[in-house]
């Protein structure tokens, strides 16, 4: 128990889905008259829909030990991303409790908060701070980030003029230089060309082999195999099993 860095107990997340009750609209005229009616009779807007509960996560419990590199796998809609969002405190769970001991950085998307009008240099600072780095930290790693991304030449060009490959490389370069105690990563390695992907994977390995705890969602089993030492399998919003990966 002592070295459980993340403890997830009976986490559930419910969403409410709205359904429209009516049959299919036949014509544009029907649609228009119906909408017009609903303006004058506001109650109709509400009576038309009924809600259904949807459990994106249902009673999920597991724990992660210090230094574990855990891959989370499962089909589309199994609840992997919801789990990561709850762990990164973006959404709150409906039930359950999670205890985390350490600084968490989550990487749910490459280039969160990049602003198209800002230059590459400015975006490194902005994105770095959004991901939770301090200014001094970004400054000290600035050269490394630039070198990793390989966009030195365009550092003072607004990123809206970047090719999509350059954009993604710069964004990943910032993220790769995060140094939290716990790193949460969602399917972000599938970017750039094959060579850059290899570079990313290598960087991720460096990060995870330095004793940090990593949670990693991917559909790419090869990436999970090479990065993680454990895997958690989710299916239909439920926790199925946790297993040690054989190298």
């Amino acid at each position, binding site marked *: 128990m002592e070295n459980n860095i993340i403890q997830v107990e009976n986490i559930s997340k419910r969403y409410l889905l709205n359904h429209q009750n009516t049959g299919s609209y036949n014509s544009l005229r029907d649609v228009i008259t119906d909408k017009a009616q609903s303006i004058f009779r506001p109650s109709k807007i509400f009576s038309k829909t009924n809600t259904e509960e949807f459990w994106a996560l249902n009673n999920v419990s597991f724990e992660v030990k210090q230094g574990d590199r855990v891959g989370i796998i499962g089909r589309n809609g199994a609840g992997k991303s919801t789990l990561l*969002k709850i762990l990164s405190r973006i959404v709150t769970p409906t039930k359950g409790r999670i205890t985390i001991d350490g600084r968490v950085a989550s990487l749910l998307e490459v280039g969160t908060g990049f602003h198209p009008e800002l230059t590459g240099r400015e975006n490194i600072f902005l994105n770095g701070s959004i991901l939770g780095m301090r200014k001094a930290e970004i400054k000290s790693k600035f050269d490394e980030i630039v070198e990793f991304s390989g966009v030195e030449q365009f550092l003072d060009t607004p990123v809206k003029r970047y090719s999509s490959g350059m954009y993604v490389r710069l964004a990943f370069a910032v993220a790769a230089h995060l140094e939290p*105690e716990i790193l949460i990563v969602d399917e972000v390695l599938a970017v750039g060309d094959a060579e850059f992907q290899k570079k990313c994977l290598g960087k991720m390995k460096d990060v995870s082999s330095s004793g940090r705890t990593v949670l990693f969602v991917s559909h790419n089993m090869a990436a999970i195999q090479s990065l993680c030492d454990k895997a958690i399998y989710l299916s239909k919003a439920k926790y199925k099993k946790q297993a040690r990966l054989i190298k």
Partner: protein
Amino acid sequence: MSKHRIVIEPSSENSNYWKDLWNYRGLFYFLAWRDVLVKYKQTAIGLLWAVIRPLLTIFVMWFIGWLFESKVPQGIPRILLVCAATLPWQFFSSSFSEASGSLVANSNLLTKVYFPRLIIPASTVIVCLIDFLISFVILLIIMLYYQFVPDVKILLLPLFLFLALVTSIGAGLFIAALNVKYRDFRYVIPFIVQFGLYISPIAFSSADIYNSTRIPQLVKYIYTLNPMVGIIDGFRWCILGGETPLHLNPFIASITVSILLLIMGIWYFRKMEKSFADVI
């Protein structure tokens, strides 16, 4: 173990919220810096916009006041009276509307990273504050032109600026949180700003309202509930001196409304904050 223990529970009141807010001050600084940088990118005259926009409003409001012959205290040029009111109004209207739309405008951040959400509307207000400070040059130039020397009360100006800040953040937080769920408020904001320009003492002065015999008492009471009335009167009192007295009771009413707005804004924002990422 580590001192950073985080407990995630369904509706737990995050006791570390204000500490968290302090820890994320770096992000606050960077978001404000981003907004400042982006605001005048790819504009030919850049920062000049911060002067031109209030300047045009001053001329229009001056014209309206002149046309309807609103009273001007002895020894004070009408343009100065209008200017001392337009600048705080402009600050309020821009920071209120920017803050109100800020959460939706930054929805990509809300759904991808954690940070105390208060940072977003708060950082947009900083940009408007900088614009305000730049536009202050207009006032200085007009004063210089009319060789108008303010008295020592002008040192109290930051106090009233702070009140304007409180009002715009309070109202902004409230509308921003509502706007996340009900986009209707996107259409309400321009109305508030547009009406506010005419019902606040910009083209006229509060004394016109209070001394008028044609205006029913009830309307006068309602008028004082506009928080911008107290703030603008305060600005005029600081800048123009004794000729534009501060009516104490209405002023207290305005301040009370400002503070209530802030408390309500923060309360509602905090209440809704947890569901932002789900409903945005």
